[in-house]
């Protein structure tokens, strides 16, 4: 009986919390409240970004309250459709997103693209990394490339997402820049980064394409070696790891995470959000959140963000066409 009673109370509380967040969406003069729309479930990367940014903004006093709404479904498409549909009431809402929005709209997972929303700013970024087990015969990325160029099927490349999505495309980009035939890449998809990592450690795949922040954890543990990263410059977290460009392969890639407003949001309001996010970087509260999560900052507000997205869309679109994922 007791459990039933408290259980019911809990649900009521949740309902009340939900109701209050919904009503909050409409108020918006100077930014006091932000409602964060998260296109995936609790505990994922989008969730962590929105909640981390919200925490830094409220604790530093830049805004009064932050509320969060998880709306998963359709690889993030559900949340985008929802934001567009309720655009008029959603001027107080920011949706978190990342590189997959570009890839998914190219491959028509959902019909909308970033153009249907109001891009605010890219906030943090993560580079791609190529990783081998410590016991691997490969000491440098060049050795992998020469094996690949001799026989593309001799190198199996593991990744934590499907063919044609980020981990695959980043690998294809690197081997293409190295003069190989990206279409002959032997890419093995796993359902998550963790199982992909288990895949190279079990020896069934030779190379892992993953995010740098995920790779650095296991590299510090001494289980894997990072051969190269896709940033333009070396990372201060792992200064010994060369970039692809240094190795002579002209390819770079950053997986950004940033925020979008509802379509039809005024420039004034959008700039205000972008300013707010830029102020956040200097707060100590943000530095705590950033270091806790191992994030790197990349601030690209408004027009810069749009230009960056257009460029990324063009580069990835060409690559996907070449690989046969787009016609």
């Amino acid at each position, binding site marked *: 009986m007791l459990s039933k009673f408290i259980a019911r109370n809990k649900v009521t509380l949740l309902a009340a919390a939900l109701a209050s967040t919904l009503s909050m969406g409409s108020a918006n003069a100077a930014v006091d409240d932000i409602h964060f729309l998260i296109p995936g479930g609790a*505990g994922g990367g989008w969730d962590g970004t929105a909640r981390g940014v919200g925490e830094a903004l409220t604790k530093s006093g830049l805004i009064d309250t932050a509320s969060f*709404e998880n709306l998963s479904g359709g690889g993030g498409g559900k949340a985008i459709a929802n934001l567009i549909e309720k655009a008029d009431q959603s001027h107080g809402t920011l949706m978190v997103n990342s590189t997959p929005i570009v890839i998914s709209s190219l491959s028509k997972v959902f019909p909308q693209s970033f153009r249907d929303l109001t891009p605010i700013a890219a906030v943090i970024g993560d580079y791609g990394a190529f990783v081998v087990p410590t016991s691997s015969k490969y000491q440098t990325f060049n050795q992998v490339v020469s094996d690949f160029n001799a026989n593309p099927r001799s190198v199996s490349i593991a990744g934590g997402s499907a063919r044609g999505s980020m981990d695959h495309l980043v690998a294809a980009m690197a081997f293409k820049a190295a003069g190989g035939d990206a279409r002959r890449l032997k890419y093995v998809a796993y359902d998550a980064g963790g199982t992909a990592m288990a895949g190279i450690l079990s020896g069934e795949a030779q190379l892992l394409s993953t995010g740098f922040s995920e790779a650095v954890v296991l590299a510090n543990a001494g289980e894997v070696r990072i051969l190269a990263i896709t940033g333009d410059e070396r990372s201060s977290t792992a200064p010994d790891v060369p970039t692809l460009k240094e190795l002579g392969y002209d390819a770079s890639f950053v997986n950004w995470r940033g925020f979008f407003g509802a379509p039809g949001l005024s420039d004034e309001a959008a700039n205000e959000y972008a300013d707010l996010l830029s102020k956040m970087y200097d707060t100590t509260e943000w530095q705590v959140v950033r270091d806790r999560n191992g994030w790197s900052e990349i601030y690209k507000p408004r027009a810069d963000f749009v230009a960056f997205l257009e460029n990324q869309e063009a580069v990835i679109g060409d690559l996907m066409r070449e690989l046969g994922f787009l016609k």
Partner: protein
Amino acid sequence: MLDGIFVGLGTAVMPFNIMMVVVGCFAGTFIGMLPGLGPISAVALMIPITYGLDPSSGIILMAGVYYGAVFGGSTSSILINAPGCSSTVVTSFDGYPIAQKGQAGKALALAAYCSFVGGTVGAIILLFAAPALASVALSFQSGDYFALMVLGLTAVAAFSGKGQVIKAMMMTVFGLMIATVGADVMTGVPRFTFGNIDLIDGVSFLLLAMATFALTEVIMSVMKGQHLEKDPEINMAALGSMKLTKEEVKEVAPTVARSSVFGFIIGVLPGAGATIASFLAYGMERNFASAKEKLKFGKGALRGLAAPETANNAASTGSFVPLLTLGIPGSGTTAIMLGALIAAGVQPGPRLFVDNPDVFWSVIISMYFGNLVLLILNLPLIPYISRLLAIPRQILIPLILFFSITGVYLVSFNTFDIQMMVFITVIALFLKMLDFPMAPMLLGYILGDIMEQNLSRSLVLSDGSLAFLWERPLTLTIMVIAILVLVMPLISKVFGKKKVA
């Protein structure tokens, strides 16, 4: 190593950390009892709290919440057939029938004892063999996982009643088919989504289990008019009684022993986890049972309750092996815990118990405490919780409907899931009226997804050759066992008949 154990013991018995275990277990049990809210939600809720604590206390709290939630999930499975999390779905197969016989207290108590033993045995193995087991787990390749899932599917007979093997097989195939809905993990291509964006992520397992068990069950009872019947006199004393007879203890003891070890091993594998462990343990247990006992499975067999309950707790403990020794999360829940550990500045991996012995050993030692605390906390509550079933049906039925639907909604916050749940319930009602068993469908669904992924991965890796099935001794061994399990009953039947002739 002994030094480390003492350091860890010292950390674990600090009053504050003991309090963390108690609070964690209590909160976890509670959240887990709510249908739909399982360990992932429970652990995610704790993240903000752990930021203020030191790493050992934080991870002890989360570990407490984790097995508390796994434990609590079994309560709603047993009492109202609405599993709190996917790893307790199998618990309802025999747990609910036992509770319906008026022995809810016994079922809950047995679940508590089994969880305790499973968790404790798991923690002991973890203490002595974690690093060694980690390297075994890592040697599992995609082909081996595929073989293991094939072996799991041979358990389908375990999930079917008498003379229903064909129906059970049809339902298994149905489950395999449902598992293919959504974006394919290998190619990213959406399958059977009919252009509907909500179907891209596929059908959630918990939703499927709630629709086919909890909802179908209560709606059936309404259709049969049971809600109008006067409630049968309920013997409150019997309902709340937790007594197990000596014979019953003797009956389940070997089951519990087997399932602890077995569940732990499955839990260690990064690609399996507590849910798979509970299904496989149930199937294995039925294969061990005599022909007469086999008939009892699904109708309230004590062994059918003990096996999955022991195995899921042992597997939860086992999943800490790849997390702590390799930094590889084997499940969604341990992935969240990995994030929390890193945020606290603790680096999981082979050097964890060298660099941070206090964290490593105090977590393991607090697992013993956690299991003990769970038992102590829950046993006195069982007589009260089990009286839930004495609530008049007119109230209980709407309550079950309400909690099942909100539970599913609170996982995704997507209203489409509710429509989907109703749709599946309607189909399940028809199938149930035609006497099709539901459990094989869940088995097909849960194994089908992992089986398909690993098959297609193996095929990519071997460039399309089927040779991976016999090239590695491990794969071959598992495949041979699977074939033996399938063929043995046929052989014994043929030979049995010859003798008669």
